């Protein structure tokens, strides 16, 4: 588990200036901070490094000599800094977006909690978290339209579209690469690195099949089964897949405390006393999580004739990456309209071929 988070700026006159740290009583020597900056300076450019200090690691992101900010995570004994790369990219991005009026100060406790939660995120949570970010969602939508984007052009668009700042282009794209959504390549005669969409994301509600198919194993009264199935039937008769609905759900599920309840209910039906036990085991924000899930029509509560209340999933959420087959028609139009050069189109097709040939 991380033991600390520090935001710093290098000042040519005064040296290290700590802008914020968490926990507030975090003890770190000036010598260590100097060592950190010098390691970044040695590389001479923005980016991530990890540093061994005593028996622990520090994972750190440096914004480069122009702005001289450094965002560092102090890790516990024996922890692997590679596990925190994605989280560091996100935290650094949020810090850079909230420099004005020192807005980042208020965010520090939540960012630290995010660092603690991050290594436990599964693939599904990583995708949910990525899509819950407005800037990343904007990029993905642009890639869905075009398939190929110039990195430098994208940076210009982002500055125009998000005038309050989007942070750093490499940090923004980090999780796209980590989650195999894009590949980045340089091509001869192209002035900028190009981004190629290799996987798209799909998110939609689906019926809770595991519960439906195993309902009898939960020992609930038969009457409840009929009511439950009727509820699901009614819901999915009128369900229309929409971006608005997806955003509502991912906004809820990006909270790890809510996600853990949701995921638990994919394989079980819980009653009040089950929840009390979970509360006693230290599960946080339980009542709030249940309320959010009920309001979003992800779970429902049912009462048996004795008045016992059960919480059941009525709508599962399907989140996966998929091959953007539709992009071939986009590329064909690009070729016919000559909006992309032939070498670029061929490169993209080669990338798709290489990516999917391996998994045949």
């Amino acid at each position, binding site marked *: 588990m991380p033991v600390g988070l520090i935001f710093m700026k290098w000042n040519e006159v005064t040296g290290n200036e700590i802008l914020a740290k968490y926990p507030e009583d975090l003890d770190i020597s000036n010598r260590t901070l100097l060592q950190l900056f010098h390691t970044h300076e040695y590389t001479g450019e923005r980016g991530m490094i990890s540093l061994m200090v005593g028996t622990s690691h520090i994972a750190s992101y440096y914004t480069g000599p122009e702005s001289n900010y450094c965002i560092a995570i102090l890790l516990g004994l024996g922890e692997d800094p590679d596990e925190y790369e994605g989280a560091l990219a996100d935290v650094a991005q949020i810090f850079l977006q909230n420099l004005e009026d020192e807005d980042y100060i208020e965010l520090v406790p939540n960012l630290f909690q995010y660092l603690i939660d991050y290594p436990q995120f599964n693939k599904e949570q990583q995708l949910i978290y990525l899509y819950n970010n407005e800037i990343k969602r904007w990029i993905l939508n642009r890639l*869905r339209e075009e398939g190929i984007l110039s990195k430098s052009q994208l940076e210009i668009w982002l500055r125009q579209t998000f005038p309050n700042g989007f942070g750093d282009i490499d940090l923004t794209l980090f999780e796209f690469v980590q989650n195999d959504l894009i590949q980045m390549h340089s091509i001869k005669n192209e002035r900028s690195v190009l981004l190629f969409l290799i996987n*798209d994301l*799909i998110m*939609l509600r*689906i*019926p809770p*099949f595991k519960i*439906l*198919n195993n309902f009898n194993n939960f020992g609930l009264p038969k009457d409840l089964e009929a009511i439950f*199935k009727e509820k*699901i*039937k009614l819901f*999915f*008769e009128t369900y229309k*897949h929409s971006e608005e609905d997806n955003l509502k759900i991912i906004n809820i599920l990006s909270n790890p405390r809510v996600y853990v309840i949701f995921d638990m209910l994919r394989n079980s039906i819980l009653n009040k006393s089950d929840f009390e036990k979970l509360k006693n085991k230290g599960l946080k924000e339980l009542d709030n999580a249940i309320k959010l899930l009920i309001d979003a029509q992800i779970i429902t509560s049912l009462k048996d004739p004795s008045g016992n209340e059960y919480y059941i999933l009525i709508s599962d959420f*399907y989140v996966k990456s*998929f*091959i*953007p*087959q*539709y992009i*071939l*028609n986009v*590329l*064909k139009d690009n*070729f016919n309209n000559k909006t992309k050069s*032939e070498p670029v*189109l*061929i490169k993209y*097709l*080669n990338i*798709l*071929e290489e990516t*999917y*040939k391996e*998994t*045949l």
Partner: protein
Amino acid sequence: MVKKEKLIKKSKFLKNVNSLKNLINGEKLMLDTFPYSSRDEYIVKIYNFIIENKDKEFSKEEFLD
């Protein structure tokens, strides 16, 4: 678990990738258009596939018709 391979028919996709490469390299394209003219069309296809393959007790029609 839905088998991705089954759903997307990768070999067909790769064949289409190759056809498009041939077109760019100056050969005649046999197809006017590739499958899935839009992302939405593909999502509907995926949704139907999930329903068909995961649901053992309810038919697609019961949920969607």
